[in-house]
């Protein structure tokens, strides 16, 4: 264990605080200092809440002094993606159109992390409205990958992944609509999990695509992610799509996976369609080595075929834009956020139009236009309707595959982190980042990304997918894998 509080895992920090060996305020201050030192070059945060973080930490210290039994993550700092609504703190979703908006309420997950005594350091950068794979679509400038500041940290939750990889926070929350937790985790060498759709409340997530959005944890270890997962998850009566069932025992699964160091009896399916042509050679090599590691742990490796996964990208880029075209309609300058052109001469429609023109970035506009078109009378069946059918077929592919395997594996992303600016002018080159992560999004099934080595000196992620409600399988296999491999973050270059 390092003496540097920022180098510790969340589990270690929580144990020190609970044992009275370190004050939560010290922990918070150490991370605020780290942010002050490195975030000018990383730009993971859009807003740092120094006063709020120290107050929350003081409250934890006071509770401990009063003899209150602390929660498993009490006093541990966390970075919150700016798509999650936080009462009285800015929430921009990476967009100019929400600049200056201070929500009057907390998201359910915000409330849960506050109730757990987790110390929220601030809000992290992201692709505008979570649309993107590089965080370059933020209206507030890109975030830089701490492995190589000239590269992207993944997206859309790139601020969160970069904050954790840069030791600015041991934990972060992201949201994943088509891969926005897993791909950033992969390209920054950390752990990120997209829970089963409905396992974590969406109440208070600024919606991108309602039927796909799901919040989840980032950590530097599988156990840390699991600890945060259990704080976030659970039924919420404010979210109709929230599942009213016990939370999957992910912490126990992570501990068990690490302790047993064996996957004997576990059938691991390698998805034929998620690999091969178009995948970076180093990524493929790392993935193949990872599969051998799993075999070495006693897992039975089977190959499975999910033919409809080939249509996931097309289906996703109809469903997500369609839902976003409706979800983003509310940003019209009438009630909150940006208003442009209200000069007394322009009509109401003009003001709405001018505001949206000024407030939304290019990628958001692109998707609104695609979605508006796809939902139009006469096109609905051919586009949105057809995409929903593909979604059903993909879910069936999963069901068939899970009859033969307990978990499925693939690379998390076909590539390692690419350079900032490299793909921004080519939407298709950007969209293929999500090839491996989209099927689980469309099926609503859980998937985790765990580091599995380096390619050309940059991290590669292993994606482990499980059936709906079996999030614990992801954590168990990921923890066993993590215990059997050297952690890639050990080789991250020091930030100046």
């Amino acid at each position, binding site marked *: 264990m390092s003496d540097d509080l920022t180098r510790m895992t969340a589990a270690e920090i929580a144990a020190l605080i609970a044992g009275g060996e370190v004050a939560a305020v010290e922990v918070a201050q150490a991370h605020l200092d780290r942010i002050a030192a490195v975030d000018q070059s990383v730009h993971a945060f859009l807003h740092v809440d120094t006063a709020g973080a120290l107050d929350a930490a003081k409250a934890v210290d006071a509770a401990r002094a009063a003899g209150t039994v602390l929660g498993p993550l009490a006093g541990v700092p966390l970075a919150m993606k700016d798509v999650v609504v936080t009462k009285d703190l800015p929430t921009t979703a990476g967009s100019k159109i929400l600049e200056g908006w201070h*929500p009057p309420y907390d998201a359910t997950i915000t409330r849960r992390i506050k109730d757990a005594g987790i110390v929220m350091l601030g809000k992290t950068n992201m692709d505008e409205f979570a649309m993107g794979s590089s965080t370059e679509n933020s209206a507030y400038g890109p975030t830089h990958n701490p492995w190589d500041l000239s590269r992207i940290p993944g997206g859309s939750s790139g601020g969160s992944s970069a904050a954790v990889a840069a030791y600015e926070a041991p934990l972060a929350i992201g949201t994943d609509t088509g891969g926005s937790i897993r791909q950033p985790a992969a390209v920054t060498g950390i752990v990120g999990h997209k829970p089963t759709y409905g396992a974590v409340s969406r109440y208070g997530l*600024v919606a991108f695509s309602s039927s796909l959005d799901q919040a989840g944890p980032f950590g530097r270890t599988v156990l840390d992610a699991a600890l945060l997962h259990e704080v976030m998850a659970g039924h919420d009566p404010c979210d109709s799509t929230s599942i009213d069932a016990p939370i999957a025992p992910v912490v126990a699964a992570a501990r068990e996976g690490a302790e047993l160091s064996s996957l004997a009896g576990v059938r691991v399916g390698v998805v034929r369609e998620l690999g091969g042509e178009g995948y970076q050679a180093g990524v493929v090599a790392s993935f193949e080595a990872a599969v051998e590691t799993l075999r070495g742990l006693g897992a039975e490796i089977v190959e499975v075929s999910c033919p409809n996964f080939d249509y996931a990208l097309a289906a996703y880029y109809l469903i997500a834009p369609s839902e976003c075209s409706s979800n983003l309609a509310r940003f019209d300058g009438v009630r909150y956020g940006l208003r442009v052109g209200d000069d007394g001469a322009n009509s109401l429609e003009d003001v709405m139009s001018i505001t949206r023109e000024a407030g939304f970035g290019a990628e958001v506009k692109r998707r609104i236009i695609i979605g508006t078109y796809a939902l139009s009378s006469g096109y609905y069946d051919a586009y949105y309707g057809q995409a929903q059918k593909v979604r059903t077929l993909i879910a069936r592919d999963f069901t068939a595959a899970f009859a033969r395997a307990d978990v499925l594996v693939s690379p998390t992303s076909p590539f390692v982190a690419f350079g900032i600016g490299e793909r921004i002018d080519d939407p298709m080159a950007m969209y293929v980042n999500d090839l491996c992560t989209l099927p689980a999004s469309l099926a609503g099934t859980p998937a985790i990304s765990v580091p599995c080595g380096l390619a050309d000196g940059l991290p590669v992620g292993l994606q482990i997918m499980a059936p709906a409600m079996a999030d614990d399988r992801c954590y168990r296999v990921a923890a066993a894998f993590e215990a059997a491999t050297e952690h890639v973050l050990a080789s991250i270059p020091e930030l100046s």
Partner: protein
Amino acid sequence: MNYADVIARYEPVIGLETHVELSTASKMFCGCSTEFGAEPNTHTCAVCLGLPGALPVANETAIESTIRIGLALNCSIAAWCRFARKNYFYPDMPKNFQTSQYDEPLCVEGYLDVEVEGNTVRVGIERVHLEEDTGKNTHVGTSGRIHGADYSLVDYNRAGIPLVEIVTKPVPGTGALAPEVAKAYVTELRNILRTLGVSDVRMEQGSLRCDVNTSLNLPGAEWGTRTETKNVNSLRSVERAVRSEILRQAEVLDGGGRVTQETRHFQETTGDTRRGRSKEEATDYRYFPEPDLVPIAPDPDWVESLRVALPELPAARRVRLRDEMGVSAEDLVQMSNAGVVDLVGITTFAGAPVGEARNWWLGYLAQKANERGVEPPDLPITPEQVARVIELVSSGSLSVALARQAVDGVLETGSDVDEVVAERGLKVVSDTGALEQAADGAIAANPDIAAKVRGGKLSAVGALVGAVMKATRGQADAAAVKQILLDRLGVGS
């Protein structure tokens, strides 16, 4: 233009879309109050303001009420259905989409029989679906409309109130009776909704709003182009709107013109309709299933239990009024002509003697309706409230004069009977001491009249009774006052 002449040459087809605000305690998708008349924007929250991140949760009572409406209208109840988003930009809609139902309504394929001049007309019900109401815009400026307004105000208290839309099938073949059929349908529908207890059905407050579709065709020809008339805010207006639209369209057709498919607005003052938004620039609402809500799959056993538990509906009540309460056929016709059959029925079944109920609705309340230029059911008083007034009279708490004051109070303030009685201090003065004092005062002030009464002209006592009633602000029982006066004048029995 002569209406009979028009009807001789053209056949009208009508159709009605009725929006009913449910009287649930909370809104459709959040916990905010649905109370009418609160300070603007005080019954709002993150959900009904459509703030980023907020999510809807469907109000189960609203779903139940909608199913009960469907059952009362002889509809099939969907085994599985969904909400859908209706997308369009308008500042009274916080999300710029309305959560509604599209191709999967909760209730379909029903009917409602209405009686008009001795004929039973079956009005087909196409669908009954559930949605959320929008906020309310007030356009400030001379035009009163959004175009040309100096500024506009939006009140989101109404946004998210559960709204049921009941759509009829086109109703052909009613001929000259089309306006009456339209009115009879809304009347009967309103009676049913009131009987179900699912809505205040107050047209003047907008908790029941009606759009009337009208078209004309030559006999034997295909149906004509229809117009949709909005702003029809009373039962009387329903009838007037159809009649005026029939006349207007006939004039257009007679002149060789073409009826335009458009929205028209009924003008309460002139009784005609004015052109509104043209449907030719049809909006594409880009409906799609609401991903933030789960499908509704009502348990068939539950639906059956709702069906069994439906209250007696107005048609059955009318039969019972006749058969059990002994209301004569003549009385029924008289009540029917006055539009008060169901009001009398509900008042009666709320506990009032049928004769009293009849007298109030055909007497004082009919007069009040007439003064206000509305139909009796449009009066802002419920049959239950009238039954309560009758109860207070028969228990001796109120005299008839006081009861009328109580009714006036309800009509003026919208408060409940007991509130009005309490606020205005309406009660019969039964304190004998106070009455005797007032009687003595009246005798002293009117020595001539007192002398006449003492002299045996007992009828003259009326003037003294009047003086005492005035002194007690009408709160004394006139019979008791008379007796006290006679006693004190030494001519009591």
